[in-house]
């Protein structure tokens, strides 16, 4: 009796389509079923065109991603992503875990080069320069792109040295220049008032929220063309999160920001544009207001309203 009672449940799971072997999103396991035409098409690996809102065409683009594919070994993580990132605006990438948001973000400054098994196809351009061109100097490229990671990762050195790190590796030795950049960057990251008296203390003694703002200061010290934020608040408490969000608001305009987030409220509060990704594909991309209030696809609406994912 017991065996018969168990079996249907097992069979049910087995019947669930497994589009990808390795990177099956954990959140999917709990989902009742996959709804909607678009998701079914994606799950079946059928060709599908992302819904890109018209409003994006009017923007000036700092970063252009065109038909970008990425494989980890044999498994494909990104499927033909085409996505322009507007200049001076905040663009949020949302989607369930494992949908390729971070992978896409890390492809922009070629951090995926550090993983041996990664293979890419397609094109990315930063202010018109091809990121993946054969002759592209990765080091020079990364200096034009700032990045802030999920977990604060200050370097094991003083606050001052952390901020001016990108200048140090460029061989800058002028103390005046370093001090100016340090102050400007820390002010930019609204950390200056808290640390101005202890710039020579170890950065590792700061609190988590301060460390993350220090990382932002470090990223903007190099005056990057694009700032990549990979879930910058996921390791922080609500108060620190609020400060980082305020900071992102302040940075808007002077920097073009591409940000991964799991927090819908954060995406709607801070970003100008939002891209919804699912299983390695761009599903819908448009101005944040439109995506949240009147999405073109039912699937986007479902995800945003929490009915799925």
């Amino acid at each position, binding site marked *: *009796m*017991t065996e*018969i*009672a168990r079996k249907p449940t097992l069979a049910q799971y087995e019947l669930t389509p497994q589009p990808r072997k390795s990177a099956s999103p954990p959140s999917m396991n709990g989902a009742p079923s996959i709804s909607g035409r678009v998701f079914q098409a994606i799950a079946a690996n059928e060709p599908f065109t992302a819904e890109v809102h018209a409003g994006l065409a009017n923007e000036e683009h700092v970063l252009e991603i065109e038909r970008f594919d990425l494989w980890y070994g044999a498994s494909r993580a990104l499927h033909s992503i085409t996505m322009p990132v507007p200049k001076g605006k905040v663009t949020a990438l949302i989607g369930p875990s494992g949908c390729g948001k971070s992978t896409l973000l890390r492809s922009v*400054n070629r*951090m995926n080069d*550090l993983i041996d098994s990664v293979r890419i196809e397609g094109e990315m351009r930063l202010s018109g320069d091809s990121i993946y061109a054969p002759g592209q100097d990765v*080091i*020079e*490229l*990364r*200096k034009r*792109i*700032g*990045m802030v*990671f999920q*977990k604060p*990762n*200050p*370097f*094991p*050195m003083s606050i001052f040295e952390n901020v001016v*790190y*990108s200048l*140090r*590796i*460029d061989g800058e030795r002028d103390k005046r220049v370093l001090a100016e950049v340090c102050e400007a960057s820390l002010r930019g990251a609204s950390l200056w008032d808290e640390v101005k008296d202890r710039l020579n203390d*170890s950065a*590792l*003694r700061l609190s988590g929220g301060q460390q993350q703002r220090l*990382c932002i200061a*470090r*990223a903007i010290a*190099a005056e990057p063309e694009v700032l990549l934020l990979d879930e910058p608040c996921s390791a922080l408490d609500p108060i620190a999160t609020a400060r980082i969000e305020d900071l992102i608001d302040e940075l808007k305009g002077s920097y073009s920001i591409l940000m991964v987030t799991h927090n819908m409220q954060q995406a709607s509060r801070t970003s100008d544009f939002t891209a919804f990704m699912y299983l390695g594909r761009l599903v819908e991309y448009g101005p944040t207001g439109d995506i949240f209030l009147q999405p073109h696809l039912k699937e986007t609406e479902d995800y945003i309203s929490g009915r799925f994912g």
Partner: protein
Amino acid sequence: MNQLAAPNPPKSRPPRRRRAEKRATSLFANGEPMVWLTGGALAIATVMIAVLLGLVLFEGLPTFWPGPIVEVELADGRRLAGELAAEERFVLEPKALADLPEARRAQAEREIETEGGVRRRMLRTGNYELTGTHFEWANDSDIVGESKPEWMLVVERLDDGRFYGVPRAVTVDGVRTEGDPATVWDLASAQHDEVRERWERGRTLKNETIGAIHARIEGARLRAREIELENGVDSPQAAEARAAADAIATAAESEFREVQAEINKLQERNKGYSVELETASGARRMITLEEIVRAFAPNRLSLTERLGVYVSRASEFLLDAPRQANSEGGVYPAIFGTVLMTLIMALLVVPFGVLAALYLREYARPGPIVSAVRIAINNLAGVPSIVFGVFGLGFFCYIVGAGVDEALFAAKLPTPTYGKGGLLWASLTLALLTLPVVIVPTEEALASVPGSMREGSYACGATKWQTIWRIVLPRAMPGIMTGMILALARGAGEVAPLMLVGAVKFAPDLPLDGAAPFLHPERSFMHLGFHIYDIGFQSQNSEAAKPMVFTTTLLLIALVVLLNVLAIWIRARLRRRFQGNTL
């Protein structure tokens, strides 16, 4: 109601897992005995270390303490005087017991009954040139009289060990005065410092001035030999160089005679100062003040004066060269050699090991070859150290050293310069020995640097080397220091390979001195570990050397602890700096 009446349908729940027959409620599962087992193991380890340190301290510290002098009169009429060195009880043979006179036999029998044996004491009687022995046993059953002679002196001499005797006469500048011990000794003591100063001056002249003259003659000869090797023995240049060398030698010869004359004058003058001592057995002997290192009457000393003697002996031990085939005097050259060799070793092994670990961890692509290399390095740590000594001798001394000699020191051949054991080869051999000790913790430290830090650095546009240099190495520095500490501890205590590659019983010159090029890496050196072995097992006067073995061991332990504490202190500082406030 209906539901209650109806029989419950059988539920399709899985059957309960049957629990184990023997439920794990035994003592073993409870864990209490394991606490005792583990705690006991730790306690035994701690006790063993404590006993080791305690023994070394107990045996090593009293070495310099001046004990009282006991004079005993034996039944056969002999009189012995000396410091008490050891004491034990033994059971007399029945025949020996029977031979004893009535009173002493009764006493001995009583002692055997109550204490388990008759006491016998070993006295350090010295006076080697008269008696042919340094120590004598005295059985209590043979003793007819015992006293503590007030004016019995302990005389520590340059040669022949200690002398025990009562001062009877003194000769000052050739004038002999007899009298009671107090006056005689006051007169002698008043002159002693001056005489020793002259002796010191003579020694300096002999070692340094004459040494320099010899070095000059030797240098000229070597230059001539070089020219000979370059141009042929019969060439005019060689003849010219030989003539120049001869001229230098002649000039030096006269200088040498002058210095020698001065030394002779000093010695001649010192000969006029001596003291005549009477031993316990009544024999008299003249001892020049020059050869007396230290002399005092232990039975007259107050506690502070004893402490003074202790400090004086201890400072001689730490700061002076050994005498009497290492059984007396100091170990300064050995301390110097040990520290210098260990530091050179650390200087060689740390950068080398860190570079190797960097490649292994940061650059090498993980695979079977890297794994094999890693296993080989780990196994290197298990190779017996004498094997490294043999390698050092065979490779560094006989191949590399011989090559260096032929290339740079051809004129000196057949006397080897680098083609024998020396400080450099010993340091290199130990560096090789401690390489795995540095590589393994360094690799671990490199591996423990969080990936997020590296990523952050790469994202800032740093190259791989910049990331390693600015992020990975500082962060891994405490781990690297751990490797260095282990290497220091291992290297400073190693003896076996050193016997083959440069540690010697006695080295006349320190490997670091005032003569250019100041550091002489080719010189043989003394080492505390080897010194312990030497005085413990190679000494003629083994009984006198025994306390020195423990004292030197104590010193070696103290030295290793000191080097370690220094390194740990540096590591703690680095940790605070690079890893936040987490210790």
